[in-house]
């Protein structure tokens, strides 16, 4: 690794080269991990305000102007609470679980490219790393449920693991599509490959699939039976209070925003937008697009009812998994045919808008065809259910109930 910038300054200042490199890497790590940590402070306020407005109330507005300092008030409250560990709980696992949960979310931010020149690490296997780290979060939640020595926590943990492990499958299949289109698992190259056309326009069904399974992965409505706040006494969180609960809380909110940013990076162009050549403007576009998608996810959270665990499982195994497999097959076939006919560039990185246009139009047609088939099936399923319900009602009326 060559020594430039801060490393070179330190080296010239007389430090040993190994130590200079280590210090410059450390500063880089602190900066990269500072972005999610600062974001989470703002996110908690945004979430509560928007949830409140959708529910026709004001939300926090006492602490600071518009309630902006509410997060700090929450933080101080959680920090000064007594740090309890239940007597019969598994002490080490109980205390380690919130840390692993938070770490698994912050680790994802290490591979996200903020601008063409600023990113944590450009891993050759970025997508796989991201999915692997997200699966560590599953482990943390189950450990929390088990280590609390509480049957409700354990029940919550069982359901959580079933949910999270099942919804990883459509997520990985949906992520196969940008990897296929970009020809690389590195997130930087995936964003570069969207210079001609966003993948969300080439493959909208994949974007929707990733969005749905990411919502399920974080335990957001309609899948929030993980921490069904009005049932199951807060799930695996029951025995946690104080800052340990704060870490789970912050990890969940950060995870939703992380999913929004990943959706932008994979499907909605990353840092592309008009005037993106300046790093600061590029970063602003990324943040703007991520905020719009985060708002949509919050909107859905506060509007839809909760699903039951068996409905969630049925939906995954009977609808999402076949759809995601069919999606990958259709897109792979279309892309290969277009490449054989020389209508699509072999390598999307550096391709211009005009070169990618035929591929975009054909893929869009294929996606619309799949979408029509899905909507048609939904209509017939809805009609069957309605007819069955009417039959039941008429049978009851005929009996004279």
């Amino acid at each position, binding site marked *: 690794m060559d020594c430039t910038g801060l490393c070179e300054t330190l080296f010239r200042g007389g430090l040993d080269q190994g130590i200079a490199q280590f210090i410059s890497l450390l500063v880089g790590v602190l900066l990269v991990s500072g972005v999610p940590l600062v974001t989470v402070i703002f996110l908690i306020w945004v979430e509560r305000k928007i949830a409140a407005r959708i529910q026709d109330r004001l939300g926090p507005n006492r602490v600071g102007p518009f309630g902006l300092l509410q997060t700090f008030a929450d933080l101080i409250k959680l920090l000064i609470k007594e740090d309890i560990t239940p007597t019969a709980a598994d002490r080490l*696992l109980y205390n380690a679980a919130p840390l692993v949960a938070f770490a698994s979310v912050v680790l994802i931010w290490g591979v996200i490219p903020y601008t063409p020149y600023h990113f944590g690490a450009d891993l050759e*296997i970025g997508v*796989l790393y991201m999915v*692997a780290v997200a699966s*560590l979060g599953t482990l943390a939640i189950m450990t929390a449920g088990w280590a609390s020595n509480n049957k409700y926590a354990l029940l919550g943990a069982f359901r959580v693991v079933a949910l999270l*492990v099942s919804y990883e499958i459509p997520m990985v299949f949906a992520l196969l599509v940008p990897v296929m289109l970009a020809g690389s698992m590195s997130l930087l190259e995936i964003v570069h490959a969207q210079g001609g056309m966003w993948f969300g326009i080439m493959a909208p069904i994949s974007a929707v699939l990733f969005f749905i399974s990411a919502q399920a992965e974080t335990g957001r409505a309609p899948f929030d039976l993980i921490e069904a706040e009005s049932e199951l006494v807060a799930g695996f969180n029951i025995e946690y209070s104080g800052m340990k609960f704060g870490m789970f809380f912050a990890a969940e909110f950060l995870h939703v925003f992380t999913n929004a940013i990943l959706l932008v990076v994979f499907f909605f162009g990353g840092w592309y937008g008009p005037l993106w050549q300046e790093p600061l403007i590029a970063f602003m576009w990324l943040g703007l697009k991520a905020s719009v998608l985060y708002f949509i996810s919050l909107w859905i959270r506060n509007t839809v009812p909760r699903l039951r665990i068996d409905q969630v499982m049925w939906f995954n195994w009977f609808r999402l998994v076949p759809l995601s497999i069919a999606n990958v097959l259709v897109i792979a076939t279309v892309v290969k045919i277009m490449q054989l006919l020389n209508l699509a560039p072999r390598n999307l990185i550096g391709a211009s808008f005009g070169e990618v246009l035929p591929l975009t139009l054909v893929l869009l047609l294929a996606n619309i065809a799949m979408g029509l088939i899905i909507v048609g099936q939904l209509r017939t399923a809805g009609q069957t259910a309605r007819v069955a319900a009417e039959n039941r009602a008429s049978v009851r009326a005929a009996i004279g109930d």
Partner: protein
Amino acid sequence: MEITIVTVAFIVFALISLGGAIGVVTCHNLFRGTIWLMVSLFGAAGFFVLLSAPFLAAVQVLVYIGAIAILFTFAVMLTRSISNLKTRFTRLNINIAAAIALFVLLVVGVIAPVFILNPDLQQPVSSVTRTTIDLGEAFARGNSFALPFELASLLLTAAMIGAIVIARESDDEV
């Protein structure tokens, strides 16, 4: 032999994986045992990174830790293996002796004469390695690993169906 960052990383990962392994075979509480198993597998993932196989490292974390170890946790919880307070080991002394004898045999009989005493087999032959793209191509080419790849997916399907059938409640109707 100079102490570089690679050596330090190797020692750290070796301690993690060996410590985790010892934790697995000596724990009372099998839930903790699965956590130790995850720790040991994480150490092995570190080794894969040091050996220029990042794809295998990510697959190790994703498959072994994210799926297999969680499967073990479920099995531990479903078979109530936590409160089993009977003795942990059968014939402890002879088994420890057997394991140590095996280790000594492997080191003295195989590793030392072939690899320690031969200076040609100590450092990597070259630093140009195959990458993940080559692995993907190998799995797709007909004259390479395409057939084993298909057989592996067949094996996984059979295992999945077999596990569901074996583990289902016997009074369930299909």
